[in-house]
């Protein structure tokens, strides 16, 4: 992989190819990721990926064009510039397109692990083997699956406003599933973790924990309905991820489909609930700047339960008349059209142990994890999905027998509004390459709507 200086030099060279009168910003991305998948008790799909890409956005007379390529040759860069220019020349003018980010001096350093970035494929494979062994030591009869994701991305960014930055980030993520498809009512257990330093993750322990969570008894049936619930960290992570999109996405705010329309500045959750998006915090998977070069800025999304503003990239901030919060996405990403979305959620811990949460619920359901969650109605924040990998009855303040899975259909705002207690132990969860992360404790909720039950 190229050095940071070489990446920055390539970004300069790309800008130098722009004709006079054109402005632009360029991102050179160098990535190296390993994805060690295991399934049916063996390392099944080990995957190593290395790549370097250039992404260029150009502007002329308020017309914007974007192009990206993996061809880093001189001819490739010349073609990239011509392509972006050609698109810009026919673009409808965007009179509100903002200036590119200016150099603002120092930015807060990110947490980064060079060891993680350099971890060899064999070492990554050994992490997967450790997770397998850990799970097998507890559940020799179980079927074990999961993944170890380890790698890094170096972003070198330059623009015609004089900004030059190099922002590396590293990420590691491990998840383990142990299931028993051989049982009359199949059951499963799950654990996962993420960190910017692979050394901070104990693969064997995650494997053991997943196996220990496989219910021992036969899973029982329970009728659909409203229940008091404890949501474990992975389930809360999903819930907050959807809340971030439905409530704090810049496009949702602009277009009127945000579930927080007319509710900003108002209390939507109990006063002991504080949710931030903080891409600078080592408690998340931090990076110093976004893909436009704007320094990451913490945003209070729920301040003592009161809804804050949406996050923004430069374009949405200019339209809203606010300062950008550092949530610019890759301009060539098809997902960029979704607008700026929080990607480093941190829910402040409370003071309850996990047992306290279960006691608070008294009679209800413990949910380990959600599956295939989709938006039913964005403005009402209604989502639907399934429970998965460990759903239990809570009786008289204690965890009882395993339950067959439920489908839920619930308003995220209603769920958050019913939070009764926040756990004190937090954990970091992330997508496969650490592009977004949620750091959260478990929660006790007063109500959660399970709309159907299943036979498994």
């Amino acid at each position, binding site marked *: 992989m190229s050095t940071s200086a070489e990446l920055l030099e390539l970004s300069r060279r790309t800008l130098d190819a722009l004709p006079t009168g054109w402005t632009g910003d360029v991102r050179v991305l160098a990535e190296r990721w390993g994805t060690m998948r295991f399934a049916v008790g063996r390392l099944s799909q*080990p995957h190593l*990926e290395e790549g370097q890409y250039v992404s260029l956005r150009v502007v002329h007379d308020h017309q914007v064009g974007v192009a990206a390529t993996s061809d880093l040759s001189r001819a490739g860069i010349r073609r990239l510039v011509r392509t972006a220019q050609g698109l810009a020349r026919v673009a*409808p003018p965007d009179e509100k397109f903002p200036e590119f980010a200016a150099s603002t001096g120092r930015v807060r350093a990110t947490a980064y692990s060079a060891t993680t970035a350099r971890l060899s494929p064999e070492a990554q494979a050994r992490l997967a083997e450790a997770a397998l062994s850990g799970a097998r030591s507890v559940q020799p009869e179980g079927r074990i699956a999961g993944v170890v994701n380890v790698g890094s991305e170096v972003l070198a960014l330059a623009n015609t406003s004089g900004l030059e930055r190099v922002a590396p980030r590293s990420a590691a993520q491990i998840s383990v599933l142990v299931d028993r498809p051989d049982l009359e009512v199949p059951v499963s257990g799950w654990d996962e973790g993420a960190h910017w330093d692979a050394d901070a993750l104990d693969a064997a322990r995650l494997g053991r924990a997943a196996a220990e969570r496989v219910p021992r008894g036969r899973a029982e049936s329970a009728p659909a309905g409203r229940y008091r619930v404890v949501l474990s960290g992975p389930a809360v992570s999903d819930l907050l991820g959807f809340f971030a999109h439905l409530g704090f996405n810049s496009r949702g705010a602009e277009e009127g489909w945000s579930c927080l329309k007319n509710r900003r500045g108002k209390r939507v959750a109990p006063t002991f609930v504080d949710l931030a998006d903080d891409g600078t915090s080592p408690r998340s998977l931090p990076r110093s700047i976004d893909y436009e070069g704007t320094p990451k800025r913490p945003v209070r999304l729920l301040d003592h339960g009161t809804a804050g503003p949406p996050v923004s990239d430069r374009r949405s901030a200019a339209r809203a008349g606010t300062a950008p919060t550092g949530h610019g996405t890759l301009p060539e990403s098809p997902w960029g*059209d979704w607008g700026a979305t929080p990607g480093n959620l941190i829910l402040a811990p409370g003071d309850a142990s996990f047992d306290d949460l279960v006691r608070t619920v008294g009679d209800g359901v413990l949910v380990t994890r959600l599956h295939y969650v989709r938006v039913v109605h964005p403005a009402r924040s209604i989502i639907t999905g399934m429970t998965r990998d460990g759903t239990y009855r809570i009786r008289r303040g204690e965890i009882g027998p395993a339950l067959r899975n439920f489908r839920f259909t619930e308003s995220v705002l209603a769920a958050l509004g019913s939070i009764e207690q926040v756990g004190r132990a937090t954990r970091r969860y992330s997508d496969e390459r650490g592009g977004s992360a949620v750091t959260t404790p478990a929660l006790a909720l007063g109500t959660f709507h399970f709309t159907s039950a299943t036979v498994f």
Partner: protein
Amino acid sequence: MDDVLARALRAGHGAGIRRVEVRVSAPSRYESLAVRNGEATSLTRREYSGIGVRALSRRGWGFATTASLAPASVRATARHAARLARSAGRSSREEIPLLEEKGPTRGRYRSTVRIDPFTVPVEEKIALLLETERALHVDPTVKNGHAALQTWVDDTWYADSDGASYRSTITHIGAGVDATAVGSGEVQRRSGPSSFGGDYRQAGWEFVKGLNLPEIAPTVAREALDLLSAPSAPTGRTTIVLGSEQLALQVHESVGHATELDRILGMEAGYAGTSFLRPEDRDSLVYGSPLMQVVADATEPGGLGTFGWDDEGVAARRTPLVRNGRLVGFLSSRETAARVGLNRAGGTSRGDSAARMPLIRMTNVDLLPGDHSFDELLEGVDNGVYFTTNRSWSIDDKRLNFQFGTEVGRRIRHGELAELVRNPIYSGMTPSFWSSMDAVGDRSTWHLWGIPNCGKGQPSQTARVGHGAPAARFRGVAVRGG
């Protein structure tokens, strides 16, 4: 390109390696054009070249990829794949079975394209999108109009250590519109010709011209407006008729994914999930009504899942999955087919680019047409709901318990379509739902849809797949308004 392929094959075929497959993207091109409320939100072209090498040791697979085609990078990548295959082999005591593949092993596949989309001036495309998007603004209540066009041209070379080699150039294109109306405390979105950005096909620019986007846009927008004041969909068990595009997604989620052998064998358990099906269910399990006929057809002209060979060098083929309501086949790879005793692979092993490991992916998984006209489907319904254009979709990890919402519903009264209803949702369990299908629409109701966003795998892959589906009628389905 032959030298790149040969270099990778040589470097990957080291000690302990049984098989090497090499794919080179050279290049894959993608164009995304989109306008929203008169402004461009995406004017993007992306080009990717790179190589992916998959190696098989006696007991494990390994895959490595790089975006550099420089000789040293190619050799290093192939060696990484081999090292990973050996590492994987150490974690298992079981040999990976693999079906032999006989047939044409060299060739050229090229999409049938009348007008190459990349030769059409971008001005012309933007003009079409702007005209279309303007046509959505039929009322100030339409707060957002959006028109988008996406094109992919993938030029891929393949070679493997058994001597197979081919080149394929596949063009996919699609476009669509959507309008969001906001008013009276309600938000309603309507899209056309389908959700997920419209409709897609393996074709050229002529397909987009044929979508008549400026003509359909006002109708799409007016329905979004009408939905603002429409009553909520009813709640209870009733007869429903699913429109072709919603039934396509129903097939995708509850038949396509469920019949993937990697899911069935637990190889996707840690992420996408498994399936309620078991290998021994083939030829015995009743999937649904005797009217249910489903095939996976990678030879279907124009489908997003149509190709010459899959990424294991298996020629495209048509595989029956459900015949007269009974499960008769699976989507399979060479390994999974061997594991369950099939006598040939399904030819469905595909990566979404050379940079991704091949996985079992849907090709064109079609529900075949029946013999009812659309009017005849309605005739049998005194009181029911017609569902069209997907809005939300969710199904459990075994592909049993599903809930789908559509953008629009219409009451069916006395055999005719009646008033609009908003936020309609239906739900069910896969086999009982398909068993409730009592009438299937004929060819006039059937359409080959393109779905460009099928996610699977780690690292994540986005496959473009096809689904042909008619309209169909189902009895006693749980329905409610959201």
